[in-house]
């Protein structure tokens, strides 16, 4: 152990050099209330001689007062920090402990066992590489064990040690150990752990914690400390794609512009081609700046500052990636959520989502289900209460750069913050994007029609419905718009009612004004198409020339002329608004079909014969046409 090292007394310089090469491991201990977690940590500290005399004296004093171990020193008292915990004899918050050996420095998150402290365990687990799950040898795998294993798995811990504790009470019976080993492996087989080690031990007496137990001579595996000193948690993720979430822009003067952050994954070298997500801007790494001199190479977990060859606009919230594998960006996700507040989750309410480096307003649009952490089953739910875990869809008000949590625990994690109180309400792990805006990343784009179209995931179009009054244009147009809306498309309808009363209030039904009417509608539609919308125009528009004029305003393929072909007699017989009757009576002048001509389209994209097709069938027909013509498959790779 570090503090027994002969080198300290003999050659302090040599000792310090040796200590400089120590590696580092963070682990979490969890288990039921009386499984002996605090005792185990106390044991690690005690056996590694990291308890000072004065601390020991104070523990001895407290052991007599409130200890639970009779004449033995209650090592748990070293660890239970808060006054309330010492009085109640339970651990209610995460406590961090430190010890080191010649090989490694360890940070231990000691987390509570009770059901109501799931959030604390998740907190401790979020920064741990290894989970040590304590099981009382007498009771075997309990509900608590399942819950803790599940939380460890959901937070992405890959290495699990099952510490089968209190083996002294069962006389180090190998069959007890074997049964627990088999049972645990069976239930944990779907939890995604890379390795599981079961160690028989007695934290109280120190068997197999640091020193090998003579009583468990049938056990050949490592001691707990032996395992913790050698487990490799570093190399697994080093080959992942490079990610630098930009934390802070470093601008001491006009000549220096650096981007500071901690490398979330992978490796970067001077000269590497980079791309910024979500802006899509590209450049090359010029320098990797640190106060100790520039580096050629930086790896995961290093806090660095990059400068680039080009002056491009990058700010906090962006992620610098290498061009070979950039992060995704999206504004709708599926995510796992752990709720941590006494105020339950309100789907639809706006919260703030805080990722590694960005804060953005967001709402949980829909809770898909809650997960019963005792048997991992999916339960229907509308909300999450404190300590509950669920799967939900999430939408942010602006796209964020991200990776799936499974691929990257830094760029896939987020917390949920209440906008009013600023309290941290929950934590989440992004599973995948529900709607991708992937292609924006590949090249830098101006904000133009293509960009807007891609943002909306659709090709803009103008559906121009033409036909006699009462032919059914508006009915069909409305159905089409509803169907598109249901599909999540972005639409707008211009019709006689919303145009004639506003923009074209100054026009009457004379031929000249009819032409001007259609010209204005054409221009208006063009703007909407430019905005990326599927625009629907529903007007009698009797003259071929004006319809062609509107067609000319747009790009090829964008103008879709739909002739709602209803014979005059049929339209007149329907006469829903009573207009034909009034026109026949001479009350309305210049009425199309009566005293003003209708020029039927010569080559419309779509013809609807309403005498043969219902309005619903017509709407389906039109939506199918749009689908067949690629209006919907934009933005999907």
């Amino acid at each position, binding site marked *: 152990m*570090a503090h027994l090292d002969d080198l*300290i007394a003999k050659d*302090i310089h040599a*000792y*310090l050099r040796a*200590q*400089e*090469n*120590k*590696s*580092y491991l963070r682990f979490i201990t969890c288990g039921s209330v009386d499984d002996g977690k605090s005792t185990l940590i106390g044991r690690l500290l005690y056996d590694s001689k990291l308890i*000072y*005399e*004065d601390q020991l004296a*104070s523990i001895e004093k*407290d052991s007599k007062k409130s200890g639970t171990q009779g004449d033995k020193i209650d090592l748990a008292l070293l660890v*239970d*920090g*808060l*006054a*309330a915990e*010492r009085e109640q004899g339970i651990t*209610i*918050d995460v*406590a*961090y402990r*430190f010890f*080191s050996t010649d090989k*490694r*420095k360890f940070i231990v998150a000691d987390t509570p066992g009770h059901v109501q402290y799931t*959030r*604390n365990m*998740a*907190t401790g687990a979020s*920064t741990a590489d290894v989970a040590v799950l304590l099981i009382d040898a007498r009771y075997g795998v309990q509900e608590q064990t399942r819950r803790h294993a599940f939380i460890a798995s959901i937070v992405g811990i890959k290495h699990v040690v099952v510490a089968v504790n209190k083996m002294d009470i069962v006389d180090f019976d190998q069959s007890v150990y074997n049964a627990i080993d088999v049972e645990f492996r069976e239930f944990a087989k779907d939890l995604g752990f890379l390795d599981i080690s079961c160690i028989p031990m007695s934290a109280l007496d120190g068997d197999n914690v640091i020193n090998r137990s003579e009583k468990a001579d049938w056990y050949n595996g490592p001691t707990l400390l032996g395992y913790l000193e050698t487990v490799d948690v570093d190399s697994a993720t080093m080959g992942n794609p490079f990610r630098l979430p930009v*934390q*802070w822009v*470093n601008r*001491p003067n006009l000549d220096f512009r650096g981007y*500071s*952050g*901690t490398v979330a994954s992978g*490796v970067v070298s001077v000269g590497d081609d980079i791309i910024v997500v979500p802006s899509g801007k590209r450049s090359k790494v010029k320098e990797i700046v*640190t*106060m*100790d001199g520039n580096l050629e190479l930086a*790896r995961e*977990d*290093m*806090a660095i*500052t990059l400068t680039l060859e080009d002056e491009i606009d990058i700010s906090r919230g962006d992620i610098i990636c290498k061009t070979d594998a950039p992060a995704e960006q999206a504004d709708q996700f599926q995510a796992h959520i752990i709720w941590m507040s006494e105020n339950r989750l309100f789907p639809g309410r706006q919260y*703030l989502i*805080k990722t*590694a480096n960005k804060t953005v307003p967001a709402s949980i649009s829909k809770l898909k289900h809650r997960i019963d952490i005792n048997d991992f089953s999916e339960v229907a739910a509308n909300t999450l209460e404190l300590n509950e875990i669920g799967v939900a869809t999430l939408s942010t008000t602006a796209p964020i750069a991200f990776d799936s949590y499974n691929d990257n625990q830094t760029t896939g*994690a987020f*917390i949920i*913050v209440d906008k009013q109180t*600023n309290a*941290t309400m929950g*934590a989440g792990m992004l599973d995948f994007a529900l709607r991708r805006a992937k292609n924006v990343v590949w090249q830098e784009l101006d904000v133009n029609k293509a960009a807007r179209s891609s943002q909306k995931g659709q090709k803009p179009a103008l559906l121009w419905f033409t036909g006699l009054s009462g032919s059914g244009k508006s009915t069909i147009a409305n159905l089409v718009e509803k169907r598109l809306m249901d599909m999540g498309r972005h639409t707008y309808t211009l019709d006689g009612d919303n145009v004639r009363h506003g923009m074209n209030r100054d026009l009457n039904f004379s031929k000249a004004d009819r032409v001007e009417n259609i010209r204005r509608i054409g221009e208006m539609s063009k703007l909407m198409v430019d905005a990326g919308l599927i625009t629907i125009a529903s007007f009698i528009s009797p003259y071929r020339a004006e319809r062609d004029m509107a067609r000319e305003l747009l790009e090829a393929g964008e103008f879709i002329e739909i002739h709602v072909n209803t014979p005059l007699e049929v339209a007149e017989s329907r006469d829903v608004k009573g207009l034909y009757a009034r026109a026949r009576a001479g009350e309305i002048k210049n009425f199309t079909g009566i005293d003003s001509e209708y020029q039927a389209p010569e080559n419309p994209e779509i013809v609807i014969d309403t005498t043969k097709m219902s309005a619903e069938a017509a709407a389906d027909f039109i939506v199918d046409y749009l689908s067949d013509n690629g209006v919907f498959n934009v933005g999907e790779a």
Partner: protein
Amino acid sequence: MSLIDTFLSRVDALSERSGQSVSTLSRKLFNDGKGITRLRQGGQMTIKTMDAAMSKLEDLESKAEGKDAMRMTHLDRLEAESIHIMREVASQCENPVMLYSVGKDSSVMLHLAEKAFYPSPPPFPLLHVDTMWKFKEMIEFRDRRAKEVGMELHVHINPDGIAQDMNPFTYGSAVHTDVMKTQGLKQALDKYGFDAAFGGARRDEEKSRAKERIFSFRNESHRWDAKNQRPELWDIYNARVHKGESMRVFPISNWTELDIWQYIEREKIQIPDLYLSKKRPVVKKDGVYFLVDDDRMPIGPDEVIEEKMVRFRTLGCYPLTGAVESEADTLPDVIQEMLLTTTSERQGRVIDSDAGASMEQKKEEGYF
């Protein structure tokens, strides 16, 4: 397999993997291109030569695996974490400040701040809450370091304390600490409207600190609510506060005392000389030596001022900070002594020894 056979097969493996010829490796290992060939033919080496070659071989092997550039030691990781925390504060908070108490932890924190923002100076000022009873050397050191680093330094002394002629002798350590440190700190934070304050506290120092978050929320009256802390996951920190509320941020939470000393040694960080032993005038009170830093120190009729080789394990108000007798006058010697010692660091401070949970109470009232 003999040691030499193992050695030779590792050399061959390295040669194959790294593309370096055996004679090149031989030159690197023995300063002799033919050394390995001779060894293979049954030639002899002294054990010392073999040991040296073996350790060089290990270096070469780890370089070949790219491990050298890529390896992060525990100090590298602690440093990276602290830098990350400081950058978060600079980005998220409007008006942060760094509490500078002139001790070794503050020295490390200041060094980390320089690293975090290099080549910019740290984008926040320093604040020292003075008690009028700090060691003279601390004040000199403080003013010099602030100037060298190029950071603005605010010094605050509680005016009520000055008016009451506050001192630890007549008022006692508890009242003195409360008025000069706790109240003084709150006054200073209110006066400048800081919404975040860095502190150099470590989780290994004391039991209630082990449970405190890195970003620790304080309400308008600077109180800590131990049972209602914000969950803190991954390295995502929620520093959002309303006007009047604030964050105490502890960037070296996960460092231990040994880490601090090792880092000071590795990075050659300046610390006040008080940490190193030298002959100083001291007086013994209740079995503890205190430095006679100026003539305000009351000397009782039975007390004598002695010259002793002493140093300080922690720095605070000189009448409250016990000296330890020591011969350690260099940094490695201090570290050596610390490692061989068996009493914990804070024991020299009077504030902790009152009752088991006193630090927790003090923190709830706004102490750092």
